[in-house]
């Protein structure tokens, strides 16, 4: 055995018998530290190759754990050489893990992607690739680049404004969110939301409304996911108390 493959950190020191072998075929077990634990299985290989089947297997185990505990999913491929080191990692990060577990308790992650389609996207035409012998003067070349830069910046601003508009109705319905604008030219918005489990339907309906209003954008809402994007509780104090099941986000 070369190490322990780690799936998740959970909010209890032990977990009941889990069905099925782990990634690499070993038996699932928990390594406790005080009132939390890491869920692991022994592996023979130095490295677990990143194959879809393995990642799905990892995910299946994380999701099975979510049915019986509060879970912080660990990144795929995490191997720890021995249990002593794992216990030390749990001890070192105990307070952070406990805070994060509290933050995700009773909640799930939803993922939103919004595509900017050709009709809406003011993508500038690209600069022609200069081929020799080019008759462009140096000045002409840079002035063309300047024009391109200005259009890119305007586009960026437009994307930001649109993303803000889309985020506003959703911010009311979620506990926390993290987002990125223009991760690729056509991916206007990529967001992850931490949502109370009973509130998932409301978010789905809100996205449906947004899709109606913004007929030229395309929406993809996936989930419920384990809270991959919310495993570090940045600042617990920044989270406002619940009020009637909905909350406004601080720093939104």
């Amino acid at each position, binding site marked *: 055995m070369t190490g322990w493959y780690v799936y998740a*950190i959970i909010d209890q020191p032990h977990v009941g018998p889990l069905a099925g072998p782990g990634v690499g075929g070993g038996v699932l077990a928990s390594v406790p530290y005080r009132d939390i634990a890491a869920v692991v299985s022994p592996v023979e290989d130095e490295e677990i190759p*990143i194959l879809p089947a393995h990642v799905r297997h990892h995910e299946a185990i994380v999701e099975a754990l979510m049915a019986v505990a509060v879970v*912080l*999913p660990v*990144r795929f491929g*995490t191997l*720890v050489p021995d249990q002593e080191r794992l216990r030390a990692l749990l001890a070192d990060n105990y307070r952070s893990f406990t805070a994060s577990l509290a933050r995700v308790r009773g909640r799930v992650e939803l993922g939103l992607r919004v595509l900017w389609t050709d009709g809406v996207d003011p993508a500038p035409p690209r600069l022609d690739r200069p081929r020799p012998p080019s008759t462009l003067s140096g000045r002409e070349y840079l002035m063309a680049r300047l024009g391109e830069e200005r259009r890119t910046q305007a586009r960026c601003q437009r994307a*930001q404004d649109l993303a803000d508009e889309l*985020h506003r109705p959703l911010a009311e319905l979620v506990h*926390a969110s993290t987002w990125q604008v223009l991760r690729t030219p056509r991916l206007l918005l990529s967001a992850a939301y931490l949502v109370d489990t009973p509130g998932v339907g409301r978010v789905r309906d809100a996205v449906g409304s947004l899709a109606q209003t913004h007929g030229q954008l395309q929406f993809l809402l996936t989930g419920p996911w384990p809270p991959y994007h919310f495993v570090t509780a940045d600042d617990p104090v920044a989270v406002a108390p619940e009020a009637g099941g909905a909350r406004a986000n601080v720093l939104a």
Partner: protein
Amino acid sequence: MTGRAFEDDDVTLLELLDRALEKGVVLWGDVTVSVADVDLIYVGLKVLVSSVETATRMRQPLTASTLSGPLAGHS
């Protein structure tokens, strides 16, 4: 399986990879790497460029739009 189910699967797998490979708790430095040196260098580049751009943005005067929301936001 219908065509729709295949596409659902594709998209769901990509969303899963995006999460399980890039997010989640990082316990043990970096995860297992394949073509190791090339991977690490790419990651380093992205971090470098993000820092440059952030530094540039910080030098611009604060306007209503820069106050209302950074391009990558958290709440």
